């Protein structure tokens, strides 16, 4: 029954309800695949097979009684940034060694309430800080994709590299992920999967290890647009425990997908045509424009003049918020403790040993920009630039319904290729970070392949809380792109 792992969630739900197979069989098929592939990919850092099979059994009973939830019996991977009750949660950092949360995040609670099954915890860049999943304390995660005729190991992107790699390699039906500057969409583009970052406030952040609180947002990585809509349907909710989580009804996203795009206006922001962007990315973007024209949409070139300032502003705001959020890791309440002569040296030793190089870099950067005398020049300035970026979007959304851009300036790169230069790594998020700065929803959809046979993605950016239009337009790309190839199973 190995083909069970190839089903989309929507297909699997039908099969489960029809009694074609049980959730236990469906779950076991994924556990077998994890067993086969995980050594090579390092996508799961903690598989939980026993828990998975128990949850699957309970799902089968509910299906039998006709009480199936929206995701009943569907096995998922969970990014190790989501707290899972009594299941080790580390954010892939040494400093959270052995942490077993006594509570469950709101997002994962919503998923389990809808009947989903947990296969285990997925790899990520330490504290979600990275664009290649190479900063994980548990070792890098590997992209299931390789260049044609070349066995160089490629990164899956980051920070949600484990989520993207596991979904692309069919180790789980879908995965949870989080996006602070592009951490859902960039890995989705690198692995040929669908990655959605919802509007800030659509999904509760409660119980998710915090990185940059004004930017962080959770979303799904899936193998189809419809699965993405179904996952968001369940993940989104109002939550008393997160004051930034909005109190507005969750629309029926799948219903919105059936609507036509004829008459919609698609904006093409000219500032996204950046220097050094490959010709094939440019061609893919043009192809996307043609697809929308054929579907009856109008195309309009627009300008977002502050685009180039989004990334530098991000590298003030995100580290500043991170330095504050990560102050809680002090060797007292949980995780790693390294003793010292007094309490200060105990803090300093624990944090020196517990945090990796990139995390330390960002904590120090954040501490610097928030320190006395620099706050106005850096943090306040960056927050004002952020207002400018948001005003750009507000203005163009007067005239267009959605924006179309490439997701990344290049396809997946090789392990170690960009680890020497932090700035070069940061530039990966150039097309995705603006969306976080403005709090907007964005989705990356597989749209084609590079000349070397690697997946490429196109990004759609929507108005606040207009995820419905994103799904509807993403479906146009998905259908026009047709059956794209799957990665070869080189892991045996």
């Amino acid at each position: 029954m190995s083909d069970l792992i190839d089903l989309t969630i929507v297909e699997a739900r039908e099969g489960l309800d029809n009694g074609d197979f049980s959730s236990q069989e469906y779950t076991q098929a994924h556990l077998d695949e994890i067993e086969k592939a995980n050594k090579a990919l390092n996508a799961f850092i903690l598989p939980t097979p026993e828990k998975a099979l128990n949850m699957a059994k309970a799902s089968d009973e509910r299906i039998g009684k006709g009480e199936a939830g929206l995701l009943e019996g569907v096995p998922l991977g969970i990014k190790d940034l989501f707290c899972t009750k009594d299941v080790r949660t580390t954010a892939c950092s040494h400093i959270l060694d052995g942490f077993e949360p006594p509570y469950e995040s709101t997002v994962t609670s919503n998923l389990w309430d809808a009947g989903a099954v947990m296969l285990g915890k997925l790899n990520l860049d330490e504290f979600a800080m990275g664009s290649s999943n190479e900063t994980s304390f548990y070792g890098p995660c590997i992209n299931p994709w390789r260049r044609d005729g070349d066995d160089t190991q490629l990164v899956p992107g980051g920070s949600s590299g484990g989520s993207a790699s596991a979904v692309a390699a069919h180790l789980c039906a879908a995965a949870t992920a989080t996006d602070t500057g592009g951490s859902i969409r960039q890995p989705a583009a690198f692995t040929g999967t669908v990655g959605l970052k919802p509007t800030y406030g659509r999904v509760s952040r409660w119980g998710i290890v915090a990185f940059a609180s004004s930017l962080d947002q959770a979303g799904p990585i899936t193998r189809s647009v419809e699965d993405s809509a179904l996952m968001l349907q369940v993940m989104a909710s109002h939550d008393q425990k997160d004051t930034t989580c909005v109190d507005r009804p969750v629309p029926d996203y799948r219903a919105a997908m059936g609507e036509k795009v004829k008459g919609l206006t698609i904006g093409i922001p000219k500032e996204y045509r950046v220097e050094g962007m490959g010709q094939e990315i440019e061609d893919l973007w043009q192809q996307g424009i043609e697809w929308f024209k054929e579907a009856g949409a109008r195309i309009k070139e627009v300008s977002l003049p502050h685009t180039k300032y989004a990334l530098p502003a991000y590298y003030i705001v995100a580290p500043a918020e991170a330095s504050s959020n990560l102050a809680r890791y002090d060797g007292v309440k949980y995780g790693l403790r390294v003793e010292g002569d007094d309490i200060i040296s105990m803090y300093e030793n624990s944090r020196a040993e517990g945090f990796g190089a990139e995390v330390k870099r960002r904590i120090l950067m954040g501490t610097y920009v928030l320190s006395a005398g620099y706050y106005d020049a850096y943090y306040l300035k960056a927050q004002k630039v952020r207002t400018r970026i948001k005003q750009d979007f507000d203005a163009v959304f007067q005239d267009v319904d959605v924006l179309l851009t490439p997701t990344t300036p290049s396809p997946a790169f090789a392990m170690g290729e960009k680890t020497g230069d932090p700035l070069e790594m940061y530039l990966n998020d150039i097309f995705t970070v603006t969306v976080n700065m403005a709090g907007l929803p964005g989705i990356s959809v597989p749209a084609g392949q590079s000349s070397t046979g690697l997946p490429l993605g196109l990004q759609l950016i929507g108005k606040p809380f207009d995820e419905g239009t994103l799904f509807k337009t993403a479906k146009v790309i998905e259908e026009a792109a047709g059956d794209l190839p799957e990665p070869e199973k080189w892991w045996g």
Partner: protein
Amino acid sequence: MQINEETVRKIAHLARVKVTSEEAKALESELSTILTWVGELDEVDTDDVEPMTSAVETAMKMREDEVTDGGYAQRVTKNAPMSEDNFFVVPKVVE
């Protein structure tokens, strides 16, 4: 913006992260590069622009001031590297 090793050490201490001299040297050049790059923001005219405080305009939520959770010190201290009788244990802080 260039920063020196002394500044790196000062902010590392503020952030309570011990750095080796090797790390301090590397951070000196990395942070200087990043700070020079973010200096591009000076080009943006932000006179009369309010700083963004919330990505989506929302009204502050209010709720009754009452206890809604708690009463399980054992669960709270369960993950502590050192604890005793539901208290966190730290090195001596008063002489």
